[in-house]
């Protein structure tokens, strides 16, 4: 009896400036495989579907539990995490390519440091006085915690930016993930001390005004963050802030 095989095609690129090519593989099927385990099989036996020796696939991964945010890629046309992409639920040949809105490092590995820079620009932190013992934190009622917690689940995978039509060099849009973090920190009893600075950072070019309400972000988010709600809340706050600043001036 013929062994069951998985057909997979992977877009490969040996470096940032190298041309991209598609390479096909046929990998023995095992129950419960995800896209990561297929790539591990390739690494253990780096031969493509034509029987030619090749190199292991380069990709980002770490936790394999969809919580570290590393392994985002485009699988069968959809931006998603490779660890939770189960082979048995995917149409074959499975087509895998790197995220398209970020510079390719090699194969499926891309540079997403722009998000971390954005988080710096909006001061996405609670400015505590210090780490010495200053007693307990502010009281937070369960209702507030339940509103904040979903926003705090963002894994920085950048899928929301990948699918956003407005996230591109022309607009310089920061994207949904950053805006959601602004909402999170602006709602924290201590974090909101920086609220005005965060809103001003989102006021100009590349800020909330760039959002085109395509709503792709909220559909693609693997952690189901309430992204569109966050964008509209923050947009409202930015508008108020701009008006206030205008009147003050």
């Amino acid at each position, binding site marked *: 009896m013929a062994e069951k095989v998985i057909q997979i095609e992977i877009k490969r690129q040996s470096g940032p400036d190298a041309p991209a090519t598609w390479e096909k593989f046929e990998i023995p099927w095992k129950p*419960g495989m995800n896209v990561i385990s297929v790539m591990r099989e390739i690494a253990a036996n780096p031969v493509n579907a034509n029987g030619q020796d090749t190199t292991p696939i380069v990709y980002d991964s770490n936790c394999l539990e969809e919580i570290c945010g590393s392994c985002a890629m485009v699988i069968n046309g959809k931006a998603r995490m490779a660890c939770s992409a189960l082979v048995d639920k995917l149409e074959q040949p499975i087509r895998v390519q790197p995220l398209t809105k970020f510079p390719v490092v090699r194969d499926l590995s891309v540079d997403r440091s722009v998000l*971390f820079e954005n988080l710096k620009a909006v001061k996405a932190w609670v*400015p505590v006085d210090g780490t010495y013992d200053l007693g307990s934190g502010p009281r937070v009622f369960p209702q507030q915690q339940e509103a904040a917690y979903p926003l705090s689940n963002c894994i920085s995978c950048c899928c929301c930016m990948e699918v956003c039509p407005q996230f591109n060099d022309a607009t310089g849009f920061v994207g949904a993930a950053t805006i959601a973090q602004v909402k999170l920190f602006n709602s924290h009893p201590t974090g909101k001390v920086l609220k005005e600075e965060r809103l001003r950072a989102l006021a100009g070019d590349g800020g909330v005004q760039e959002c085109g309400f395509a709503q792709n972000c909220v559909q693609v988010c693997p952690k189901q963050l309430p992204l569109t709600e966050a964008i509209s809340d923050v947009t409202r706050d930015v508008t108020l802030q701009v008006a206030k600043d205008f009147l003050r001036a």
Partner: protein
Amino acid sequence: MAAPKIIVVGGGLAGLAAVIKIAEAGGNVDLFSIVPVKRSHSVCAQGGINAAKNLKGEGDTTWKHFDDTIYGGDFLANQTPVKAMCEAAPGIIDLLDRMGVPFNRTPEGLLDFRRFGGTLYHRTAFAGATTGQQLLYALDEQVRRYEAEGRVRKFEGWEFLSAVLDTEGVARGICAMDLRTMELTTFPADAIIIATGGIGAIFGKSTNSVVCTGSAQSALYQQGAWYANGEFIQVHPTSIPGEDKLRLMSESARGEGGRVWVPRTPGDKRDARSIPETERWYFLEEWYPKYGNLVPRDVATRAIHKVVYEHGLGIDGQPMVYLDLTHIDRATLNRKLEGILEIYEKFVGDDPRDVPMKIFPGMHYTMGGLWVDFNQMTNIPGVFAAGEAEYQYHGANRLGANSLVSCIFGGFVSGPNAMAYAKSLKAAQGDGGHAQELARQRELNQQLLSSKGKENPFRIWRELGETMTKNVTVIRHNKNIAETEAKIVELMERYRNIDLSDRSQWANTSFAFTRQLWNMLQISRVVAQGARLRDESRGAHYKPDFPERNDEKFLKTTKASFDAAANEPRFSFEDVDIQHIPPRPRRYDAAS
């Protein structure tokens, strides 16, 4: 005098905690991490973080936390640092709360606490079932703040290869590899802190992340650092078996009332929900009436093994048992456990709110690690260690929700101690050993690149994982361990005949992996041989041929040092600090 320069390697909770303390004290930090620090393995911790805040009117105290930790660790942990950790824990929770961690709350707006294994108190603060993620993000945000102020430089996408040691064996910096350009560079520092986590990868499949290879600890061990209690490996009772890894099903599932059971009839084919109560065996509740499903992990793991392999009662004849939450209402489950239930749903395809989960023990935590003194410094002057990478807080078995607190506490202790050390450090002779170390590491790279053998590194790794899991996890027999030791030696021989299918010098992940693999093989030997030498049963280390704890011979820390000439470990044993709590028998089945 210029501000001291400290290098921190690893950007999980321990590393970030150290960075924050150093930056706060005016030091300058270079932070090295293979992955962007926000993607570190701490993100995977689920259930919570322990501190005796006593907010449930139970009379909990830091002493009881200390006693539970020492007892849970079967008296192998040095008591003084553990006592200090338990005393610091309530303050650490307050700090995290102030940093904005979205901990679950009581109706009055106070921190909520749940129960965890190995204690009878509600001592575990939690943020849904993604506590590690929330804690890591809080520290990551504080570090980003210092980064924006210029106090911290991040080197993400760099791998630590070795310490730079001067002619007197004092640390003067590190050698690291840029994982894009593959270039090697040495970086000067007055002290370094190793916070590189656990060593799960030597078992092939574990609950650990991909980067948890133990490579950094092993490299230091090969440079002369002692490695302590390597044989103590925690196998978590409830993981979800997978093709690529074992995914953790948090202890919080049991903390919130989850029950472990098997059908009383071997090979029962019925749907789990249709099996009546009288035909289910809640074996943990029957064997351990006081702690029930919340016995410590080593106890639960052995019980599951026994039910599956001795009683032959695994579900459908497979090595699996049920972990059942279906008696708890959906709203409560969603509020307290949603994160982990989603993992099960996503990776298995069943909704654990409706169907009992199928779980089995899986390698989870490294109790052993780099030997450190009470100031968190290894025996190499200037090299500190914190978090799972060192050995000091959990003895022979770690209690659930103690890891997060030990990581942050270890970081908080090592940071200021590294600063104090750095301030009194004398200037190095010559270049402090930088040129020599760089040359040594370049030579190692060159050897690999020019190797023209037949062995695939990923297949060697697979074989290593298989033999380690088979013989050096839950049940240990000396004969089988010896077999694994021989296998590791064989794999080391084969490693010398490696074939790199990718020799390019740009973002070559398989090259970086192959370098880690050698270090994995070395540390595996330490784990296996340490297990063979310890002829007793204590905590997670269980030998049927020596079923009792033997304090007279083995109430000792195992210390492995590397004999470079023989290319193998040498072992010695060190007395344990038991000045606060006299050792007593560890019995969770009896009223104690």
